[in-house]
């Protein structure tokens, strides 16, 4: 186990792509201390920014990194990681698990936007809440999250699973607007409420809303009412209204909305 904690309170963003088990693997503590990161426009070595204790585990896939303290300004933690595990004690900055391919990240506090940006595998679990763009692609790109699992125990912001192409996102709390916008495939499970416009422009994939949602976009048509929905090996128990859309994109995505929590949607039943 290797333990990192910031030496001082960071004022400007820290780009620390090197904070990943893939980079740490096979390095001695001395080498790790000299890894490079950017503080604003200044290049620093890791030992300037963090006090580092412990040692890099061996074999590499057993590497455990623990990062404590206030790291809300630290970005790109776990970027491109493909094995090992990271435990983050406090709140953390944007781009956690950027292009992550495998391994595990456990964040015990809140995380900023772009968790699991362009993720391709592995698992991210967040005990607190997440910002916007969970599992979304880089700005402008259509290559969203491809695989892997993101679990947020708190709430999430807008555009969860934007351009998502595979994998699973679970939000235990409530989410903002445009969950699953332009989604291509994969599954988003929202256990709490949704602010609306879920599935806008979706092509395919599955969105399950177990809480309240004020309205469904008019570009979704109702299919039927389902008692349960299968999510990988598990089941969400309903009953659910099942909608198909987004028809502006000729989409065949499925949007499930809990019937009991949404009596205002009961008028759809007459179209069945």
């Amino acid at each position: 186990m290797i333990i990192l904690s910031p030496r001082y309170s960071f004022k400007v963003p820290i780009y620390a792509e090197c904070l990943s088990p893939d980079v740490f693997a096979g390095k001695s503590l001395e080498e790790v201390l000299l890894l490079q990161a950017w503080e604003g426009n200044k290049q620093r070595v890791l030992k300037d920014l963090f006090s580092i204790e412990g040692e890099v585990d061996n074999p590499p896939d057993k590497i455990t990194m623990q990062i404590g303290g206030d790291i809300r300004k630290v970005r790109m933690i776990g970027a491109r990681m493909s094995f090992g595990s990271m435990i983050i004690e406090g709140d953390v900055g944007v781009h956690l698990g950027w292009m992550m391919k495998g391994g595990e990240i456990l964040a015990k506090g809140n995380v900023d936007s772009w968790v699991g940006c362009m993720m391709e595998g592995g698992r991210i679990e967040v005990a607190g809440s997440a910002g916007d763009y969970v599992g979304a692609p880089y700005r402008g790109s259509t290559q969203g999250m491809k695989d892997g699992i993101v679990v947020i125990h708190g709430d999430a912001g807008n555009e969860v699973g934007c351009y998502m192409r595979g994998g699973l996102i679970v939000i235990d709390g409530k989410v903002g607007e445009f969950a699953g916008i332009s989604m291509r495939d994969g599954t988003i499970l929202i256990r709490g409420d949704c602010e609306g416009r879920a599935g806008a422009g979706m092509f395919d994939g599955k969105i399950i809303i177990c809480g309240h949602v004020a309205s469904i976009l008019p570009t979704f048509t109702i299919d039927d009412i389902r008692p349960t929905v299968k999510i990988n090996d598990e089941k969400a128990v309903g009953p659910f209204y099942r909608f198909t859309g987004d028809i502006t994109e000729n989409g065949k995505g499925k949007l499930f909305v809990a019937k009991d929590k949404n009596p205002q949607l009961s008028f759809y039943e007459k179209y069945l």
Partner: protein
Amino acid sequence: MDIAIKDGKIVEKVNERKAKVIDASGMVLMPGGVDIHTHIAGSEVNAGRLLRPEDHFTDVEAKTAVTRSGVGHSIPSTFTTGYRYARMGYTMICNPSMPPLEARHTHEELEDTPIVDKATFPLLGDWWFVMEYLQQGMIKECALHVAWMMAATKGYAIKIVNPGGVEAWGFGRNVKNLDDPVPNFGITPREIVRGLCKVNQILNLPHTIHVHTNRLGQPGNYLTAIETMECVEDLATGMKPVIHITHCQFSAFKGDDWRTMRSGAEEIAKYVNHHTHVSIDMGQVVFTDTTTMTADGPWQYTLYELSGNKWINHDVETETGAGIVPFKYKRKSYVHATMWSIGLELALLVDDPWKIYLTTDHPNGGPFISYPTIISWLMSGRARESMLKRINKKARKRSLLPNIDREYSLYEIAIVTRAGQAKALGLKNKGHLGIGSDADVAIYNINPEKTDLSTNYRSVRRSFQKAAYTIKAGEVVAKDDRVVRSIDGKTIWADPGISSCLGHAQRSEVMQDLKERFRDYWTVEFENYFIPEDFLKVSSPILVTPEA
């Protein structure tokens, strides 16, 4: 053999004891590369940059002691564009589509494209003045306008994009063929092409008209391309070309729809082989993620419909239009693979390398950094075969490439990448190493006497990617894939001297007319439109004398 360089020119000899000597024995030495068609600057390119942040973060270049930082794979930032060209041994590039209204922006960006010399072609094929004058048969007046436009925008050649079609697109339409009248103007694309070809001859501009044909990118358009070449056949005098068909691959589709689409390269090559009045460039497709951008609005709309990608559409007042769509060429797509094949077929079936030039229509067919790959395809049947194995099966079956044994020699490569292009552009001091020419030299670390270039196509590709030395105006600017010195390139423009086109009385009449209509047609005032010469950092006008 030694090449002596002094004061930016190639000279007969220099004092060897004082001169700096570069030992290039066992290497290939060529004139600096010339690119006749590459979209690298201007509002269109910049809009493409804004449209595609995802194109930037995957390709980042850090700054060095002599270079600035930059980003971008298919649409690199201006400085990076200059450095990357220099690292490949290119020293002269032509930006082929500049809406005249955006000329200032284009020149500002060209100024920020270091090392290479550049020229830019204003889009004139859908300009209202041109169409109105041609419709009335007033060729000389039209020539005066074009001459003024050349000087006003500091342009180099007449670019025609989908003649009439871009204007028609302003009203949601397109033209179907060369004789389909342009709405509201009562003129056909044939008349525009012929008219501007005559104008080009009257003005005696160094390059021919630079034509992007009608119906570009539509199956069956090879006939339109041949018709376009045919329509100016009678205007040719002697052996001199009068028309350049650009990115010909996109105009060489046979068939009725995308499913029956096939290669029309054979027919086009046959036509080009039998005629001297035409030159073409490849517009080769490479399998990569790129950004398409052209003034051809209707075609970009079709591409948007095909791909479903985000896109930009733009209408430039009375002058032209534009569209931008990100696009990914896939090996496994029948159409894309066929397009890849067509480009190479054209290059290999046109017998005379002086008539066809290597381009990708950057970034439409692929970014310019893929030129070395295309060189390896041209030089090696094996390289082509190894790609053929990986493309769509149906496309492979229909491709003519397996039956073509031709492999380019290094001399032919030198022609299609520099000498031929310089000749077509009428650049007397570029594309050769004769005494008095510009000291633009590229040295590639490959020895044709020791290496079989056909089998070692990978090392061919590598050496053309990373020039051992690039010398620009007598200065070593790049060495072993590293820019060692950044200098400003020249902006070359054609100065037709508007005075001699017409008689004095007529001239002032035409200028008066221009001023009046400027008020009615443009958002920019006549006085603010003209770019003064001191706006250019390094201006290099080529004086052309119009025919009497």
